[in-house]
Each structure stands twice: as C-alpha cells, then as structure tokens.
C-alpha cells in the first residue's frame, strides 16, 4: 500500500530515498575508509545489523500504532542473560528459545495491555516495565556475567558462516526472513491494516471495529518477543550473558526506525524501511569507527545525522497545511 500523498518535501519519504541513503552511506564509506567494502567487512556489518534489525522490526510495530517501546534494551538484556544462563546450565536449546520468546512476548503483552487499558503513554509504561524487568534480571544474576552460549548459536551468529548456498550468516538470513514475514503481515492481513488505521486515527479506528486493546497488545508482544530474540542471538555473538548488552539498543532501535522513515506519529511507514534504517545506521557507525572517531565523537555524529536525516524526510506538516 502506498503512503498517502503529502506535500512536496514529504513525497521524498515515499519510495527509494531510504534505499538511496543506505547506498549513499555505503559509497561514502567505500571512498573514505579503506577495507570498508571488503566481503568480510560487509558480512560483519550485516551480522551487527541483524541484532539491531530484529529488535527494530518489533519497534516498528509499536511505532506504527503511535507508540514507542523503551523496554527494548531491558528485554534484549533479559533475553541475553536468560539464554546464556539456561543454556549454560544445560537446558536443551529449543526449550531455551521458547522460554525466551515467551517471556519477551509476555512482557510485551503486559506493556500493551497496560497502555491500552488505561490509555497511558507507552513511553512511560515501557520505561516502568523496563525498570521492573531490569531489576528482576539483575537480581537473578547478581549483576555479573553469567552463563555461556551453545555452540550452534555461536556458529549461527558468526560472520564467517554461510547459510547453505547463501554467503550470509544464518542470523542475517533469519533477520531478513523475519522482516519479510512482518512486512507481509502488515500489508496483507486484516490485522496488519488495522495496525495502520489505529496509528493513523484512534477514534476512527475504534468506530471501524478495530480492537484497540487487541492490536496494541499484539504489537507490543511482537516487540517484546523480537527484542528478547535479539538478546538471545546476541548471546551467540558475545558468548555469555550480560544485562547491559542491551543498553545501546534503546536509542539505536528508535533511530533505525526513524531513519527508515516510519513516522513516530503512527500510521505511516513499514518494516522494510526499518531494515534499510538498520543497515544505514550500522554502515554509518562502521564508517565512523573507520574514521577513528572515539566512541564519544561517534555518538555526537550519530545524533547529528539522525536529526539531519529526519529533516530530509520526516518533517511534520506546516501549521498552515494542518488548518
């Protein structure tokens, strides 16, 4: 479904501009940083992007209904720690996966139910649950490194692995498959269309028979499950469980969604855009690292870029046009 026709500048938010941005950053990287575009470098970037990307898919669902999920870092951390701890204790992997996804979905569902039942701003609700989850997990692990990653998971997330004939790490393929499924969901199912409607106009959506509670719960549950999954995948990458591994993803997941062109107001955007946004973000970070910027300077540049990119294609309508 195409995005509605908007005044000139915002027509830019349609179509290929996100793709151009990714390509642009990439080309810039190739020109400026040596070894930026080597095969192994790209593979590594894609793996990093996939952790972010999986969480960003979940964040996109929430943003599409006009909310924001600040519990993403806590759930990533929780997923990471729980997976490492349980796997380290010898629990069979399928069970671990189910538990992690289940807990993530449960947490998300709670976010969704509380938000829709009391009509609360999701910013604060997810902040609160993040605090509760974070505290709980930290208590469980006493805030130390814990557990270990099963071998298959380490291979799964290794940049050097391939997936059958495809020269991409399995985690990357997983990410892209999930993204595709998610995009299919929002474009071609009734619930998916209802998500857009709810984000675009809550009152009208209710009169058009959209169950606000149901859709909100589903979106937050998806976000929770995907964040927890991302944490689980990170276990393979880091080799152990540490809660704080989720911290950078708070702003990164929002940034990926925003750079991708999904509006924080809801009702506009999509999953594919967030894929592109994640790629852009990772390419940018790699570029900055390649320029030998300290992590402090990286942060600052990242912040400026987010604002600049949004200025290109994420601006609100002028007051005169809204009257």
């Amino acid at each position: 479904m195409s995005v509605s026709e908007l005044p000139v500048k915002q027509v830019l938010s349609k179509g290929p501009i996100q793709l151009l941005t990714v390509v642009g950053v990439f080309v810039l990287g190739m020109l400026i940083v040596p070894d930026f575009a080597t095969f192994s470098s790209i593979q590594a970037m894609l793996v990093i992007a996939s952790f972010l990307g999986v969480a960003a898919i979940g964040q996109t669902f929430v943003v599409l209904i006009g909310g924001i999920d600040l519990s993403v870092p806590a759930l990533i951390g929780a997923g990471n720690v729980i997976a490492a701890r349980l796997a380290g204790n010898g629990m069979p992997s399928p069970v671990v996966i189910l538990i992690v996804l289940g807990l993530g979905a449960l947490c998300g569902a709670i976010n969704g139910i509380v938000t829709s039942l009391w009509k609360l701003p999701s910013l604060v609700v997810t902040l609160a649950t993040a605090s509760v989850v974070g505290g709980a997990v930290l208590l469980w692990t006493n805030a130390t490194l814990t557990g270990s990653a099963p071998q298959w998971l380490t291979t799964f997330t290794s940049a050097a692995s391939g997936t059958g004939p495809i020269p991409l790490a399995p985690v990357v393929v997983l990410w892209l498959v999930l993204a595709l499924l998610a995009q299919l969901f929002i474009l071609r199912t009734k619930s998916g269309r209802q998500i857009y409607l709810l984000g675009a106009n809550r009152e009208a959506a209710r009169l058009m028979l959209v169950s606000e509670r149901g859709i909100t719960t589903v979106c937050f549950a998806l976000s929770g499950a995907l964040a927890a999954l991302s944490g689980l995948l990170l276990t393979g990458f880091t080799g152990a469980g540490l809660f704080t591994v989720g911290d950078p993803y708070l702003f990164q997941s929002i940034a990926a969604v925003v750079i991708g062109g999904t509006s924080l107001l809801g009702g506009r955007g999509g999953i594919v855009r967030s894929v592109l946004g994640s790629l852009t973000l990772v390419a940018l970070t790699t570029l900055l690292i390649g320029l030998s910027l300290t992590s402090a300077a990286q942060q600052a540049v990242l912040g400026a870029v987010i604002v600049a990119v949004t200025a290109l294609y994420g601006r609100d309508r002028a007051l005169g046009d809204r009257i």
Partner: protein
Amino acid sequence: MIAKLAGLRRSPLAVVVTLVAILLVVNISLTPSMLAPAQLPNTLNLLVPSVLVAMASTPSVMSGRGGIDLSVGPLLGVVNVFLVGLLVPYGLGGAGTAIPILLVLGIVTGLVSGALVAFGRLQPVVVTLGGYLVLSGVALVVMPQPVGGVPDWVSYLSGSWFGGYLPRSVLLVVVAVAVWLFLKRRGAIGLILATGSDDRAAHTSGVRVSRVLCLAYATGGLFAALAGIGLSVLIQSGDPSIGKQYTLAAVAAVALGGNPLGGGRGTLIGPMLGALSLFLIQTLLSGAHVSSLWIQVVYGAVLLFAICTNSSIASRLTARPALGSP
C-alpha cells in the same frame, strides 16, 4: 481548607501529593536523622539536580505535539563538565563569569532544540534524541575521564545556612521557580499550555507559536543548566557520564506529577513532587538496606501504579457530556 483538600482529590496532583506524604512519613520514621541539620544538606544536594531536571522537562512536555526533551540529562552533564573541564582551567571559574556562561549554554542548547522543533518541524523525540547523543558525546570529548576541582562558590553552595537547616543548594531551585513565576505572570506559561493544547488554535489567534515553542525549550535548557550546577555541587567534580541517567528519571517524574505527556495541561509543582517521590523511594529502600537492584523493581512498579491512577483521575476530569464510546 477542607474544601481545597477535597478538590485536591480530583486534581491531577492527587496521586503525587499522596505518594510524597506517605513516603515522607515512612522515610522519616525509618531514618529520622534524614532531616537532622547534619544530614539535611547532603540529602538536599542529592535531591536538587533531580528536581531541577524534572522541572527542565516540564515546559517541553507542556508545549505539546509530542513535546519532550530527552537531552536534559546529557545537557546537565555537559554543563557540569564545562564548568570543571573548561571554565575552571581557563580561569573563568568565578561565580560572576561561570554562572552566566553556563546558564547561557543551557538556554542556547534549548533554543537549538526548540528551533528545530518549531521551524524545522521535526518531531521532538527525534530532535532531543539527537541532542541526547550529541551532548553525551560532547561531554565525553570535553572530559573523557572524571576530574576533580570545582570553584569555591560551588563548594559554598554545598553547605548550608542556619547550621544546616537551610541547605544553600535550594537556592538553585528557588531561582528556577522564580523564573517560572515570572513567566507565568507575563502570560508565557498560559501561551505554552494553549499551544500544547491546540497549536492551530493558538496560531490562528495570533500567537507566535514558533516563538512560544522556542521559549519552552529554552526555559527547559535554563533549568537543565541549573541542574548541572546542582550536580557539580553534589559530586564536587566533573563526570561526563552521570548526566544520562537523569533523563529517564525526569520523564518519570513528569508523568508521576500528573502532567499529561501530550501537553496542554499541567503544573510545575507536579513534576517537582514527582522527582521528590522517586528520590524518597530510593532513600527508603537504601535506608532499609535493600539491594539497589530492588530499587529498580520498586521504582518501576510505583511508576506504573501512579500513572494508572493519574489516568483514571484525568479521564474523570475531562469527561465530556453526552458523548459515548464504542
């Protein structure tokens, strides 16, 4: 008096006032020494930055259109780091030079956010998110590692008058409140609230919405700068990474205080009391020797409870006659 208290029950401040009352009673019974003149300055020094940063988030939230200032935390960090890392070494650390510079720094940063929101028509979450990252980075670039050495007037502010009964750091809050009252008297707060309630109504009535938005964010920046001074008073040094954790606490304080995140309504005292509540929860739990990790859990739970209750109260307040819902 009774009537006023009864009215309070239906006011958006009801929850936070009750919470503060309960927490104060419990805290004081548990640790009576909290209010002792020896302890009071320490307690207040700890409290002041949190209160000020909550106040810093208030005008941006009031101004509506998703208004929020996520950069207040890092901004207070930058102010702290600027003072210790730049002004002092270059001999500008005296009260007469440092204070105006720092306040201007806060105001200008706020103005930049406000201008991007007002004229750039960017969403506040995005702008201030960018601001958060830029300012965190800047703080680390200016001062990669914590450094000691504050000017005399900062040490002075950490003390108190009347033998401990009036900690001097309170002065910072008093200044902020005075600025607010001044703006209120000039009608600026009313304009911020009107803009937050419906910016189109304000615009078509001749209100210069862009200026009002810039004012809101600039005021927030000013309060954040005061918070940065307060932080310097507290830690008596410069620390580039402490500021960040204040941001989310500020948002929580605003929500606890009964100010709707959508803007258009609210008070200054609400977020102040919200910050006080969060602070009292922490002191309560650490006073009871509960692990700081439990504090996180309780903090989140109390926040959830408070905002649910606030929401029930608010929906009763704004209930319109003769309109149903599906």
